[in-house]
Structure formats: C-alpha cells, structure tokens
C-alpha cells in the first residue's frame, strides 16, 4: 500500500514537471511580454533592461532551470503586473476560490446523492420523473448561460442578489449555484442509476432471502455499493468544477484564482501563470490519488488487487 502511494507520488512529481515545462514554453512563445508591459514608445534600451531584469533574455532552457532553482526556495519570481512575489499574488486570491469551489462541491455532492436516492427509491413516480427531467435540463445548459440568466433574473430584475463581487453571504449564492448545478445533476443521475443497479442485483435478492429489511438493504448495502461509481464521478466533477471557476469567477467578478488566471494570461504575467498552473496541476493529481485511495477504502476487491 505505502509502496503504491510512493509510486503514485513519484509519478505525480514527473507529471507536474511535464505540465510546467509545457506551460513554460507555451507562454514564452505567445508573444513578447516586454512589448506588452512597457509603454509604446519605450526605447530599445528600456526593453532590453526589462528583459534582463526578468531574466527573459536567456535561452528558454536556462530560464526553466532558473525557475526550478527558485522553486526549491519557494521563490517563483515576481509578478510582472503587480510587482510583488507571484506566490503572494496567488495565495491572496486562493481562499476566495477554495471557499466557492468547496461550497459548490459539497452542496452538489450532498444534494446530488440525496436526490438520486429519492429518485431511485420512488422510481417511476412523479418525484423521480421531475428529478430526472431537471437533471437533463441542467446538464444541457452551459455554465455561463445559467450565470447570465441568473444575474438578469435575481440581480437585475428582482434585485435580490448583488450582480458581482465577493461581499457578504448573498454574494456567494449565484456563483456557487452556477458552479454546482452541473456536477449536482451528474452526481444525481449516477446515484440513481447505481442504486437501481444494486437494488436489482442478486446479492440484494439474497439479502431479502435472509430476511433483511428494505431500509437496511438501501442504507447499508445498496448505498455503499452505489458509492463506488459516485466517488469516481465526483472526483471527475471536482476537477471540472475547478475549470468552471475560471468562467464563473470572470462573469461574477469574483476575486479568486480563476479570474486571476484569466487576467494573467491576457497580460502574459508568466510568473503568476506558472505558480497557478503548478498549484492547479498538483491539486488535480492529488485529487486523483485521493479518489483512488478512497476506492481502496470502500472496495475490498481493489484493496487486495
């Protein structure tokens, strides 16, 4: 087990480095940041000086090595836009995103699994049908469209909620909802079908033969078995949700990592982009590892394989 985790962690480091190299090269090939940052009438000397100050005049491999060396001391360079350490810029924006994503994910998970259970339990009934219909609707509406419609309705027309920003509890509602609806629908549908599949299984038939009550079958056996595909899906959805923050935060002007990344890409703020990518890639890889470990906890067939 420990062996397996170590192997996975080693693999994770290599993957993160690969992603970093890719983003490093890609950003540097997307245009000259000095021209973007300096005034139009900057002299050649000024431009050269700017490049030298940020190490942009070296060959790309050298720049990469320097970046890696800095990484060891948590020195990721200075943000070109804010003239502050890139890590500091990122860490300042991170909490807003973590709050939002966590809130959306936990809600999606809890509500999704509960509604999925209800739908499975009353399969074919009106509750099941309305739950399934809304799931399909939610999954077919793009994130940004929901966000814009919500702003129109709740902020512009009804004036119940603020249009944007992060100020007070009410400002969380729309961004969190926007982020949560798609994963909620996906988790709900998966829970429903997984529960139904287990309910029809032979071992549930045998549990009935043993005299086990329907309640115990549902809560102790069906739910636990259904959780396996739901865990797999939830990991995936949490990853997607992190991607969703980029759009959602931009629409709602949410001061988080997602909107920071977009701003930094537009202004070619390499150092910030690099730390951001490093952080997101590490998170996604750890998430995958966590999902796999969770499988081992829930499913003995994997634990011993």
């Amino acid at each position: 087990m420990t062996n397996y985790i170590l192997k996975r962690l080693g693999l994770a480091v290599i993957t993160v480095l690969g992603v970093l190299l890719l983003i490093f090269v890609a950003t540097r090939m997307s245009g000259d940041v000095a021209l973007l940052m300096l005034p139009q009438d900057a002299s050649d000397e000024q431009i050269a000086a700017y490049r030298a100050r940020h190490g942009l005049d070296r060959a790309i491999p050298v720049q990469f090595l320097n970046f890696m060396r800095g990484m060891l001391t948590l020195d990721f360079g200075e943000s070109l836009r804010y003239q502050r350490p890139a890590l500091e810029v990122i860490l300042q924006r991170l909490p807003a995103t973590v709050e939002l994503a966590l809130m959306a994910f936990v809600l999606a998970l809890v509500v999704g699994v509960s509604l999925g259970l209800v739908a499975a339990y009353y399969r074919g009934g009106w509750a099941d049908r309305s739950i399934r219909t809304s799931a399909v609707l939610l999954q077919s509406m793009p994130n940004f469209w929901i966000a814009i419609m919500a702003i129109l309705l709740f902020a512009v027309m009804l004036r119940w909620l603020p249009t944007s920003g992060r100020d007070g509890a009410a400002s969380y509602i729309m961004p969190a909802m926007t982020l949560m609806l798609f994963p909620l629908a996906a988790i709900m549908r998966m829970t429903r079908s997984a529960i139904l599949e287990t309910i029809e299984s032979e071992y549930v038939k045998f549990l009935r033969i043993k005299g086990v009550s329907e309640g115990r079958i549902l809560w102790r056996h069906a739910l636990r078995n259904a959780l396996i595909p739901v865990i797999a899906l939830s990991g995936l959805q949490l990853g997607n949700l992190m991607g969703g923050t980029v759009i959602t935060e931009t629409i709602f002007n949410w001061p988080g990592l997602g909107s920071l990344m977009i701003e930094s890409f537009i202004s070619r703020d390499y150092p910030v982009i690099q730390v951001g990518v490093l952080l997101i890639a590490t998170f996604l890889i750890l998430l995958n590892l966590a999902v796999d470990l969770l499988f081992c906890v829930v499913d003995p067939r994997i634990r011993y394989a």
Partner: protein
Amino acid sequence: MSSQEKLEPFVLDVAGLTVEIAGREGRVVRPARDLTFRVGRGRVVGVIGESGCGKSMTALSVMRLLPASAKVTGGTVLFNGEDLLTKSPRAMRAIRGKSIGMVLQDPSVSLDPLFTIGDQIDEALCMHGRMPAARRRARAIELLEAVGIPAPQDRLTQYPHELSGGMLQRVVAAIAIAWNPALLIADEPTTALDPTIQVQVLDLLGHLRDTLGVSIMIITHDFGVAAHICDDIMVMYAGEVVETGPVRQIFDNPGHPYTRALMESSTVPKGKGRLPTIEGQPPDLGDLPPGCAFAPRCPLANEQCHHAAPPRIQLSDIHQATCWYAGEGMT
C-alpha cells in the same frame, strides 16, 4: 424451531398456484398455472424442467419475492399449514431466512462484495433474534464447519472475491441454514459451478437434510442432479406440473413423454459430443396451444392432444402424470 410448530406431514403444500406477468401490449404471461405440489417433511424434492418453464418463478412465489411485474393471482401456499400468500410483508420477512432458506444459482454474485463473509453471516444471525456477539461468532464458525469449509475462523475476515465458487456456495448455504429452517429452496445451486464441485455441493445438500432434517426443494434442469439426491420429483413444462412422484417410480415408469425426453437427454454420458436436447422449443407462455402444451413437440400427440387439455392420471397412489397416454405403457 418453535415449539408451537405443527408437524404437518408436508412442509410445503401448494395448491392451484397461478402467477401472472403483465407483458408488453397487454399480453399476460403465466409462468405458473394452477400448480399443485407438495414437499414432504425431511424429503428432497427436485423441480425439473427446461429453461423458462417457470421453476424460478414458482420458488420466488413461495418466498413472496417475485419481481414487481409478476403477481400471484390464485392458489394457496401452505407452509407448515399456514398460507404464506396472506401473510403481511413483516410476517413474511420473519419467515424468510428463519423458517425458509434459499440458495441461488450463482454464488459469485449472491453475496455483497463489500462485506466480509463474517459480516454477512453475522447479519443473518442478527435478523431473527438477539444473541451476544461472541455467541454469534461461535455460531458463524459452527455454520461454516457444518457446510464443510476448512479453517472457518480464517474465512470470517475474508471477502467474497477471495473464495472460490464452490466455497462461496457453501457460505451461501451456511447463511441459508443459519436458523435451522424447515425448508431450504435451492434454485439451480450447481449450474454455475465446475462439474467436479457440483457433486460436492449436491452431497452437501443431502448431508444437511440428513443432519438437520431440513426439507429441500431443489430446482434443476438436469435429471442427473435429481437422480443424485432427490426423493421426489416434480416435472414442470410451460408453467404446469406435468408429473410428480418418487424418483424411483418416475425413473422406472415415466408417465409423461416430456419426462422421458428429459431423462434421455440427460442420461447420455457427459463429455464429448453434442448435448442431446429435446427437439423443438418450449411454447411461448403468452400464447399457449389450446390442448396439451407439450403436444407440438410430442412424438405421441394425436388430434385429441392438440385440442383438449389432458387429464391427471394416477400411476400409483403417489405418482401422477398429466397426459392422455399416461399409464398406457408407451412404446
């Protein structure tokens, strides 16, 4: 076993049992039609018939565990003299796993993959009464010993996927007999197992009957299985009982041409060569011929067989067959 239990000569006495499944386009399929049969106390009764003739549906009606689409529309199922069909769901749950045990066809999917063998036996022991944990554990080990599982204490912490099919079917049997049931229903308990293991599991069932006195209803489509452990046989065709009687009498003097065909198709030595089967297909249960259901495949059928339902003929006081030709010494 409760002291009040009446000692009827028959553990199970089914009369006129009819099951209906609502199919597509208002079609009604009847996988059991007017079934009448009995399981004598301490006897092993084999239910034999081709695939799809309603054997599993019959067993599930006794357990009151038919799929939602199927309904019992008539008859009585007397278990120890009490009609199971009129019991409340709660009363029925108290009977399942306690007074009636059941073993399913495929042991590899009969147990919850996420729980240990010990947990699943323990769950059965928690269902119908209170026992301290230490006693339940001792009982679990005792049960595993009773079904011939070596090193039982080590099995308790193992998961289903760690055991072979034969071992799993023994575990399933251990759970089925956890409360010393009066009746054990086994629905093709050996079909999913290796041939060498099949005999062992059959012998185990026979052993359980001998040691616990449990009556067994074993479903199979193989006369060889029936010959191996059964006392009585009931042959089913297209949802009906076509012949019942003690195994010896049926072997010596099969009263129904279908019984004979089944016997011929399974007495051929196993191994190479194609499996002998009965010519033709069983009829569509939603669209049965007007006379004898077997007539279209029967070598003896004449006009009468195609148009009129055959009578039930007594071949001895305990052997009967439903055929126009029963008892006429077929050639």
